[in-house]
């Protein structure tokens, strides 16, 4: 199909060998039909440089492992086709997150901390009773919860966000979206004031500049503008009430 030869310029740094300074390394690869960055990087590792570090798990844009900067933009590498790019492709690790090595960053720890900070689980005083039927819920409500729940914690919104790049403690769009998920869930009994304590500050929703890099970079196409605005309005009301 294609007979292009691609040149990948890849960021290299291994924290285990700090004496070797970070640098960009070039690899050449013959493009194949329908080649994704996953296929390309795997080929490079297997055929040219087995020390190259990067993360893929599902290779199907479901798990959120493989985000990186492709020509400067945060993208899921597994669902990025090489044919959409020129013959020169630059790959960098995501900013904000701690570097593990080369293209691999520690999004896992970041998002776990986020869950702890936002106390991202259903808060209820009810006990589970195995002998009774489930509580009823409107299907529309279930879908409304599912919408923000779709976030795959890839970190693209965080890497592209100016605030998150500057403020270490900023929850980012993924964090605010996660809070929105619990706000719309009738099973969560938290009051607005409790949510206000979590996101009613510059660390949360008032730190957001509204530049929407998050929404533009989200590979899951979450309606982040809608979710951020929803949280902002709710928190403004909650904050003014008392």
């Amino acid at each position: 199909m294609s007979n292009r030869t691609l040149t990948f310029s890849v960021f290299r740094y291994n924290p285990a060998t700090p004496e070797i300074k970070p640098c960009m390394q070039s690899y050449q690869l013959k493009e194949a039909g329908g080649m994704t960055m996953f296929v390309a990087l795997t080929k490079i590792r297997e055929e040219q440089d087995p020390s190259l570090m990067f993360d893929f798990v599902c290779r199907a844009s479901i798990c959120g492992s493989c985000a990186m900067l492709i020509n400067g933009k945060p993208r899921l590498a597994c669902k990025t086709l090489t044919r959409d790019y020129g013959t020169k492709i630059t790959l960098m690790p995501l900013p904000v997150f701690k570097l593990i090595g080369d293209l691999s960053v520690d999004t896992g720890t970041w998002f776990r901390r986020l869950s702890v900070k936002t106390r991202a689980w259903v808060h209820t005083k009810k006990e589970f009773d195995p002998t009774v039927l489930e509580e009823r819920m409107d299907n529309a409500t279930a879908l409304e919860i599912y919408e923000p729940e779709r976030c795959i914690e890839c970190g693209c919104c965080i890497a592209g966000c100016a605030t998150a790049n500057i403020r270490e403690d900023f929850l980012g769009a993924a964090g605010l979206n996660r809070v929105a998920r619990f706000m719309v869930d009738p099973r969560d009994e938290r009051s607005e004031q409790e949510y206000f304590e979590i996101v009613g500050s510059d660390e949360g929703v008032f730190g957001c500049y509204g530049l929407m890099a998050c929404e533009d970079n989200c590979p899951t196409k979450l309606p982040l503008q809608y979710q951020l605005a929803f949280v902002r309005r709710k928190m403004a009301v909650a904050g003014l009430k008392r």
Partner: protein
Amino acid sequence: MLDTGISPQRSMGRNPRIDLYLDLAQLISGFLLVGFLWTHMVFVATIIIGADTFNSLAQFLDDYYLSYVGIPFIGLVALIHVIVVVRRIPNRYQDYWRHARTIMHFDTWTWIFQVVTALGIAILASIHVFAVIMGWPIDADTSAARMHAFWWFYLVLLILGEYHAGFGIYRQFVKWGWIKRKTIGFALKSITVIIVALGLAALWVFVQLGGALR
């Protein structure tokens, strides 16, 4: 690894709602300034109808002391706006610059322009206010003369002001989710075009007037 997420500054007596208040202050002061800017433009544009209308409007504002309340008030609002907004400018602005350069995201760049235009407006508007006050009271002839000589100055101020206001409002609409993104962008572009057109028309009249009076 498990921390509670409550940062010490926040638990130590700082008003927990302060960030909300500051955000609202930015929103409200911004809207007031835009409101002022647009009223101002409409007033100025009365010159298109004729020098008399313009003069009597200025007279009217003067007579009822509206100018003496309005100017300091707007000055104060502008000051508040500057103060609450300045905290948004990253203290490590190099970080922002580096970020904007690597990410290449359109909206992120507009924010940088927001900062630049704000600086420009602060300087130019102060000069303008100073000049107006020095030449008090306002009337069509002196305005026209100033216009004629410094038309480029007003052109720059006008464009900066419109740009800054347009995008500022756009940003607030986006942030509060009052309008869906993309549609609002279009709406504001049109608004900006209208205002700039109006402003240019006013400027043209001034220049004409100034030339005739010479």
